[in-house]
């Protein structure tokens, strides 16, 4: 047996991430506690290297390991996004872990392992490989969710996430095995061929499809598979929450879109309706329940559910049976664009929450933000920008993302869906602006003390500056990203 050298070259970024993850795990025990931040910087450096490699390969489409993996611009786009988010997570954790008194080096290793799983997910062309990637991602996240070992909520979050995550993985696996039974293969191309020969009404195919909807629905946290989200987001360390809310959601969307558009594209007449229902339910529930939240992390959890709903609008457009390929491609690229915009603003919001924790506040109840504009004007201003962007107000990234998704819907003749979504955006202003109101329009509690300057580290400054720049620059100059997404969409057949 010869070493499949060409295949290994194709997955160099995955190899780098996995190797550095192991390296971090090995180096951790022999690194003095005062130097653990070196491990973090090592991880970031490896991500920068991967970013360069992936960028240089963006234009080509290569398959590897006898078509188990595919490295196309679509996968490249998601990987770039994931590198950025992971790097931000590591930088955020540098400061945040110290406050939470988490001194475990394997933290960074697990983040990288999780990333490796996500990278496999986005470039897998085979259901089993996707499953493999999903499990690698999720198992790392289960452990990360429980990293605040001395806090009950964190452990509870971890346990809940694990039980429900395995449950949903089981459903996913069941769907995969059914599809294998029908198609005789787990390759997406083979499944697409089987869909073609079996037709739309094969009950086994339909049932398998529904099981996949449930499995992926859990990962991207859409109604009614969203219930774990608030509990887990609230309990996990905030840096991990940010990672889950952004990276794991993006990777799951990427894999799920590839499976449904390439593997089950022939069934889209059927799943289109399912996603339409899920999309509307998610939009309504996410936005309405967010109104009554008092904990900012729970509020952001429901907000992330609602945003998955907005992204699903693009999925619905891409799944329209009647629409032409150009219209569908617009839908898909709008999802890709939306999730990138979402990544920056959501990460930014969680980063501010983490930062306030650092400022000595509890920082997790919305009430804790009272009078923040006076105590920490810069932090309040950043939060204002992120909230405004999440509410979809120009000239921020959130507005462009929404505009693009809604345009895609209207363009595909789904004007009513755009109407519903736009109205719910109006509702969302209420709960996002409540945070602004508390920060800017209330006197700070005198007992909280005045902190005039941000107590901050260079890493944290870098994180907040990147998120802020992302939100503003993508809002003002969306053009480059738009052209990347339009050129990186999956080819529609």
């Amino acid at each position: 047996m010869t070493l499949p050298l060409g295949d290994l070259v194709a997955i160099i970024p995955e190899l780098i991430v996995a190797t550095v993850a192991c390296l971090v795990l090995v180096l951790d025990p022999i690194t003095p506690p005062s130097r653990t931040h070196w491990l973090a910087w090592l991880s970031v450096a490896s991500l920068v290297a991967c970013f360069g490699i992936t960028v240089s390969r963006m234009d080509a489409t290569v398959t590897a390991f006898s078509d188990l993996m595919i490295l196309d611009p679509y996968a490249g786009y998601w990987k770039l996004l994931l590198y950025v988010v992971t790097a931000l997570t590591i930088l955020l954790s540098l400061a945040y872990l110290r406050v939470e008194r988490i001194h475990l080096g394997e933290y960074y290793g697990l983040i990288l392992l999780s990333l490796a799983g996500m990278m496999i997910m986005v470039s897998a062309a085979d259901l089993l490989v996707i499953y493999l990637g999903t499990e690698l991602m999720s198992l790392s996240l289960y452990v990360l969710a429980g990293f605040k070992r001395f806090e009950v909520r964190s452990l509870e979050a971890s346990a809940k996430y694990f039980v429900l995550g395995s449950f949903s993985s089981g459903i996913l696996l069941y769907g995969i095995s059914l599809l294998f039974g029908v198609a005789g293969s787990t390759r997406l191309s083979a499944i697409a061929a089987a869909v073609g020969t079996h037709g739309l009404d094969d009950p086994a195919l339909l049932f398998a499809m529904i099981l996949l909807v449930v499995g992926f629905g859990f990962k991207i946290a859409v109604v009614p598979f969203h219930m774990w989200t608030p509990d887990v987001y609230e309990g996990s360390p905030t840096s991990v929450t940010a990672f889950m809310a952004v990276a794991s959601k993006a990777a799951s969307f990427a894999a799920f879109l590839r499976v449904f558009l390439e593997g089950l594209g022939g069934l889209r007449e059927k799943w289109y309706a399912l996603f339409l229902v899920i999309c509307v339910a998610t939009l309504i529930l996410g936005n309405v329940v967010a109104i009554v939240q008092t904990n900012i992390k729970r509020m952001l959890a429901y907000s992330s559910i609602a945003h998955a709903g907005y992204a699903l609008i693009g999925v619905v457009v891409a799944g329209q049976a009647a629409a032409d390929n150009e219209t569908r491609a617009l839908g898909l690229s709008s999802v890709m664009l939306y999730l990138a915009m979402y990544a920056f603003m959501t990460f930014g919001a969680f980063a501010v929450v983490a930062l306030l924790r650092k400022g000595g506040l509890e920082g997790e109840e919305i009430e804790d933000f009272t009078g923040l504009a006076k105590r920490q004007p810069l932090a309040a201003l950043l939060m204002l920008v992120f909230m405004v962007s999440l509410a979809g107000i120009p000239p921020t990234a959130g507005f462009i993302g929404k505009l693009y998704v809604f345009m895609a819907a209207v363009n595909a003749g789904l004007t009513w869906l755009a109407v519903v979504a736009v109205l719910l955006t109006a509702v969302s202003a209420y709960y996002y602006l409540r945070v602004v109101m508390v920060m800017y329009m209330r006197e700070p509690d005198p007992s909280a003390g005045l902190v005039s300057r941000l107590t901050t580290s260079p890493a944290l400054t870098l994180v907040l500056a990147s998120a802020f720049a992302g939100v503003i620059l993508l809002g003002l100059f969306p053009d480059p990203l738009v052209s990347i997404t339009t050129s990186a969409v999956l080819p529609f057949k």
Partner: protein
Amino acid sequence: MYDLLVILIPVFPLLAVLINGLAGHRYSHHVAYRLACGSVGLSFLCSVAVFATTLRTGITREVVAYTWIFGGDLVVNLAFLIDPLTCVMLLVVTGVGLLIHLYSIGYMHGEEGFTRFFTYMNLFMVSMLLLVMGNNYLVLFIGWEGVGLCSYLLIGYYYDRVSAAKAATKAFVMNRIGDAGFLLAIFLVFVNFGTLDYTEVFARAGELSTATATAIALCLLIGAVGKSAQVPLYTWLPDAMEGPTPVSALIHAATMVTAGVYMIVRNHAIFDMAPVAMTTVAWVGGITALFAATIGLVQNDIKRVLAYSTVSQLGYMFLACGIGAYTAAIFHLMTHAFFKALLFLAAGSVIHALSGEQDIRKMGGLKARIPMTHALFLVGTLAIAGIFPLAGFWSKDEIMAHAFTHGHYALYAMAVLGALLTSFYMFRLTYLTFYGQSRVEPHVAGHIHESPGIMIKPLLVLAVLSVIGGFPGVPPEEGWFHHFLDPVTVGVLSGAAHQGATHPIVLLMVVATVIALAGWGLAHFLYSARPEAASQWAARAPAAYRTLFNKYYIDEAYDAAFVEPAKRVGRIWDWFDRTVIDGLVRGVGGMTQGGSALSTWMEKYIIYGSINVLGYANHLTARSWRRLQTGMVHHYAAIIVAGLFILLHLILLW
């Protein structure tokens, strides 16, 4: 050179925002306000230059600042359109804006967050300028949202008041409802034209079918109704009076709230294609004009009376748009900016003199104490009441005359009745504030003082404008103002405008004057000649009085109909997400059991999962154990299964 001049108009205040926002804490207030006012002053000078050029050459110009492409079919520029309509708006916004900025130096003196105030005000100027200068819908929308955000921040400026924060949120959310309509209109425009540029859209507006044009126009109207506080989305504006008085004058009277009128006039090519939408605009305006005026009759807060009068006057502008009198709408917009800014700032001067008192029941007899403010307020009152020959007379009369000569008799009647009420409540306000016995509380009475020069001088300018501001529009429909604006605003409906004979117009002017004087006379009788009569009248119809006083209970109705149900639903779902009801779980259990092979597998899986929990949860403390044992995880899993079944049913039943 000319392009640069245009681009600089919004850039000056933007620079001031950046400098004051980032470094404002490093230097004294004097630097901050000089920067803020100076930048607006420079914008004003540029606007005058641009206006002069347009006047001289009569050319409509487009200036592209930078290309803000969207890829694909959609290309959007950050670009400005300079035509007569923009010029008028520019002069109003920067001119009145400059005066109010100057006034604020005195009014906000010594307030906490002085620099912050000016930063927000300048940010507002930037947004408002983008709004009126943009050459496409997206730039308009950016300005539109920007002014909303600044309005929000400035209403909530006095954050020690809970009511201020509530009012701010209310204003913002209500505006967002309107914005939803506006955004949909933008989508519809894009779908139908493939572009968002005004020039192309308006040139091809004639291609629209009536149904499409109506849909777009009605969506635009929803946006305009929210921003310009028309029925049914008007309740935020009176509450917005929680903000500092200069804010009320600039944002909630002179500029931002007129954005809806500007937007309709700008889009008149589309509205002209949609008669149904036009009728709707006219009736929304007519109803608002009358409805708000009735509420204004009995309010006791000096600023709230002015707020309802703003709502009512905006109604006149909508009415004018709806009957195709676009030039008249902009004319009234301009004169209203003059006299309403004057009234608000004079009211601010009163409030300033009375150490913050806003209740007119605790005023009275102020004429002798603050004569200058009194004179200025009186000029504003005369102007808004439509007393010949002040600014308000010409613009309001033109709207009413247009309604009459074009056969909109019902709207005309509403407008006339509204004018009577306007005159009445404005003179009521004047009498109660400045005449009669002093009802000022003793501890305040000692401090009454005339406002400093920096506050009075801008008011003098506004007073002059309120007096002479109507003359550019004389003679009605044939004045200089009309010749300047008509190239932009003449539409299909207003094409028939010039058929009216001269003598009914003169007759209508007489009617308008009589009406205004009647309102004045009635107010004089009730609040000056026989002060006790007013309360007797109120006592005679207690139910009607109470209904008016409580603003027809609209706020309460909205709360009961929308706000509370939304919160309740949210709370129910939240509770549902936290602790799922046993019954449901049992139900799902039954369902799973019914599902033979599948359910067996599922239960196995749940048990398998639970065993894993047992292993993993060794480290958990007792408390979390208990919470796990209530079966919440189990419940969540059951919900997932329920979801699976729902999807299955959907597919089977589809």
